Each structure stands twice: as C-alpha cells, then as structure tokens.
C-alpha cells in the first residue's frame, strides 16, 4: 500500500520559479532604493522611482516568495494536493509579467500603471483561486487553515484597494484617496502578510525546533483579535477619526502578544536544543514584529500626525517583521526544496548530503547582521535626512541582498 499523501508531492520547479524571480526582484529593488537615496533623504517617499522600488520589493520579492513557499507548504501541511499545477505555472507567468510591467510603469509612466496593475491583479486572483480551491479540498480544517484563508481574503482586498488607487492616479475621479491608500497598506502588509506568517509559524516553528506537547491555547483568540483590530483600524480610516486609531493598533498589539506567547511555549517545549541560525533569525523577526506593533501603538497615541515617523514605522514593519521573517524561513526552505528535487530518489541507494550541507549556515549569521544594521541604519539616517548615511547603509543592504541571493542560488548547484 503506497502512503496516501504521495498525491501532495508538488513539481518543485513551480515554487522555485517564484523564488528565483523573487531573489532577482529583491536585488533590483534594493539597487533602485540605493540609486534614489537622495529622495529618501529629502523625505519624498511617494515618487515614481520609489513606487517602483517598493512594488518590486513587496510584490516582486515578498509576494512572489510567499506564493512560491505556499505552493510548497500548502499541499504538505494541509495534506491536500494543489488544485492544478499547470494552472500554477500559467499563474506564475501572468503574475511575473504583471509585477514587472506594474513596477516599470510606476517608475516611468505612472499614468499607465493601471494596465500593469490589471495584469498583476489577474495573476494574483489566479493564485487566490488556486489556493481557495486547494484549501476547499482539505478534509480537516485547523487553525492554520483559518489564518491562511483570512490572509488570502486580505490579499484580495489589498488588490481591490490597489487597483482603485492606480485608477485614481490615472483618472483622479475617486474621492477618499487617503482612506483607500491607508486601507491598501493595512490590508496588504498587516492583513495579508502578518496573518500568513502567523499561520505558517504555527507549522514551521514546531517543525524546525522539533517541539511537541504545546497547547496553541492563544491561537484562536490571537486570530479573532487580529481580525477585529484590522477591521477597527480600517473603519477609523474611513470615518476619518484618527483619535480612535490607537484602539485598533492596541488590539493588533494584544493579538500579536497572544501569538507570541504561543510561539514561546512552542520553543520552550522543543527537543532540538541548538536552533539553526536562519530559523533563529525568523524567531528574532517574530519578536521584532511584536515590538514594532508596540511602537505603532505609542506613535498612534502621541504622534498621530508625524508623517516622517509613520513612514519610518512602515519601513521597519515591512523590513524587520515581514522581510526578515521571509529571509529567515527562506534560507531553511530552499535547501529542503532542492534536496527533495535532487536527492529524494537517492535515499537508501547511495550516500547523499544532509540538508544543512547544502547551505552556508555560518555565512547566514554575517548576512543577517548586515540586514539588521543596514535596515536600522537606513531607517534612522532617513529620519535625520542624511544622504551620505542613507547611501552607506542602503549600499550595505544592496551588498547583503546580493550575497544572500547568491548563497540561495548556490544551493541549486549542490
């Protein structure tokens, strides 16, 4: 009798396509930030060049990596085969074309960005359909299912708000631009990414630490409170009562705290004493995410109208919570994928390397320090509007991103 889950095998070329695209977009986004350091120094964040860099970073890197990881993780963790692999490859082509054209148009012809946005939306809608159809087939739904499902819903809302924004830029006919923009940001980076990282952390943290006997007792409360916080926050954007915003942020912070309590219990009950450095970096990112949520509550109470401070917080939220989590987990996931592709069929037949032999773990430590210093350096030199320091720290981020991507790519030569 063959084990029933062999159907959950995925053609690893599919997740790899997304991951490779993401790595290249990551390097280019950091390079464009470096090239436009003067705009960062002057505090002009909403310029075509920086729009291009942000969309390459968020869509090209973070979203594409998240999609690639989901194509790998969803079938195995939900014990459900992907709805259609062929559809997945087409979806990759459409999404990659959309993101490249959207980023390019935002940078050089913003008035026509809506066309790139439309292709991106089609690609992402295809992805959401793929995931909904896959999750629908899962026999026993669990906490992870609800977190991932909600993340996908927020992803859909991010798209709608993004499309309306792009339409607004092109035609300028819709009022409430600020409300739509703020909703777009919160739907995307707070709703989609955070809920997704929450969901997969409930699987990855016990798996990479070999933890058992943990309760996940806060998971449902963390999930419901986070959704409640998001809805409250969006509501305040539309009724334009910024005085109520701290309540929304405080609820999000409380939910994050409950999630972190679960993560700490999982780690306390682990069997693997020494944690791998990339995984440790992802754990540090969880704590940074919690701390940034706390900072947001503080700023929303005492400095609501300080645009520079809010820009700094958005940057820190994006980099130190979302991007750092991805950088940590990806360094673990890619060797597993490659090992599965190249060596899985050789188990028991010949001597094969271990997963840790495929990646340079020692170097990851230096890279993560580089990312940490670079990100903090850019954030604070932007606050002090020092062009020289921004160039220095952004240069460090370009270099670190490039070396990180090379190390990931080198896995595929082993």
């Amino acid at each position: 009798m063959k084990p029933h889950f062999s159907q959950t095998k995925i053609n690893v070329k599919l997740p790899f396509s997304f991951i490779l695209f993401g790595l290249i977009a990551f390097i280019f986004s950091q390079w464009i930030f470096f090239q436009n350091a003067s705009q960062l120094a002057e505090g002009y964040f909403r310029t075509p060049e920086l729009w291009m860099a942000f969309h390459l970073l968020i869509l090209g890197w973070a979203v594409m990596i998240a999609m690639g990881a989901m194509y790998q993780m969803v079938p195995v963790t939900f014990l459900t085969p992907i709805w259609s692999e062929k559809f997945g490859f087409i979806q990759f082509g459409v999404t990659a074309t959309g993101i490249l054209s959207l980023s390019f148009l935002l940078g050089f012809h913003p008035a026509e960005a809506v066309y790139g946005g439309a292709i991106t939306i089609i690609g992402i809608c295809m992805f959401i359909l793929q995931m909904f159809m896959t999750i629908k087939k899962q026999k026993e739904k669990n906490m992870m299912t609800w977190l991932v499902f909600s993340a996908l819903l927020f992803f859909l809302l991010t798209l709608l708000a993004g499309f309306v924004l792009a339409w607004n830029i092109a035609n300028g006919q819709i009022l409430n631009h600020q409300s739509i923009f703020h909703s777009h940001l919160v739907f995307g980076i707070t709703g989609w990414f955070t809920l997704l990282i929450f969901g997969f952390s409930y699987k990855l943290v016990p798996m990479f630490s070999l933890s058992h006997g943990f309760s996940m007792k806060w998971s449902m409360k963390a999930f419901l409170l986070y959704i409640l916080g998001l809805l409250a926050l969006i509501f305040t954007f539309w009724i334009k009562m910024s005085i109520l915003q701290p309540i929304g942020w405080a609820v999000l912070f409380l939910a994050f705290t409950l999630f972190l309590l679960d993560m700490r219990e999982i780690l306390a009950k682990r069997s693997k004493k020494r944690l791998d450095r990339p995984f440790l970096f992802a754990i540090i990112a969880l704590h940074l995410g919690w701390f940034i949520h706390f900072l947001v509550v503080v700023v929303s109470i005492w400095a609501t109208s300080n645009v520079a401070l809010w820009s700094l917080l958005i940057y820190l939220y994006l980099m130190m919570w979302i991007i750092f989590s991805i950088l940590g987990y990806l360094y673990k996931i890619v060797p597993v994928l490659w090992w599965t592709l190249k060596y899985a069929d050789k188990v028991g037949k010949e001597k094969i390397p271990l997963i840790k032999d495929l990646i340079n773990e020692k170097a990851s430590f230096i890279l993560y320090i580089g990312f940490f210093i670079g990100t903090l350096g850019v954030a604070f030199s932007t606050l002090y509007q020092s062009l020289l320091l921004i160039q220095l720290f952004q240069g460090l981020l370009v270099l670190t991103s490039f070396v990180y991507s090379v190390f990931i790519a080198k896995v595929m030569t082993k």
Partner: protein
Amino acid sequence: MEILKKVEQALYQVIDPELNVNIMDLGLVYNLKVKENNDVYIKMTLTTPGCPLHDTIVGGAEKVVEAIDGVNDVQIDLVWLPQWSPDKMSKKAKEMLMS
C-alpha cells in the same frame, strides 16, 4: 541473517535529512512484521503531520527494504496515532539533538 533483522538494519540507514538522525533512533517505526511469503509490513509515523520531507522519508524506508534480498513486497502503513513524541527517541537520538 533472518529478514526481520535485515529490515531493522536497513531502516537504520534512512536518515531524517533535517535532523540528521535515523528513523529507528527517532522512534518513528512502530511495528515491523515479515509475513510467511516474505512480504514486509512497516507501521510508522513522522515527527509531525505535514512534514515537507514525508514522501522522502517514507519512500526511503520503502526503497531500502525493497533492496534486501529475499523481500517480496513492502507495505508501509503511515499512522498519526499514537502521536510521535520525544520520549519515543533512543538515548542516542536525544543526545544528538540536545547537544
């Protein structure tokens, strides 16, 4: 050497590539039987349901046993109950993971 011993020995060669510990020391194999016609039955589990390496580990176990001279067919029954727990590991595995 009787086939059961050979199967046990072969399963020590199947390593969890993430943990670098073999599946016997990890305590993943719950039951081993060799039928009269030399069909081998293995009841096993994994450290967690939804492990990305599940196909590899179970497939590896199947391959090493199939390669043993005299084995007719291999039947692997993957179960989630009783749930695997760290106390199923051998002393050697615990030492490796705790070091």
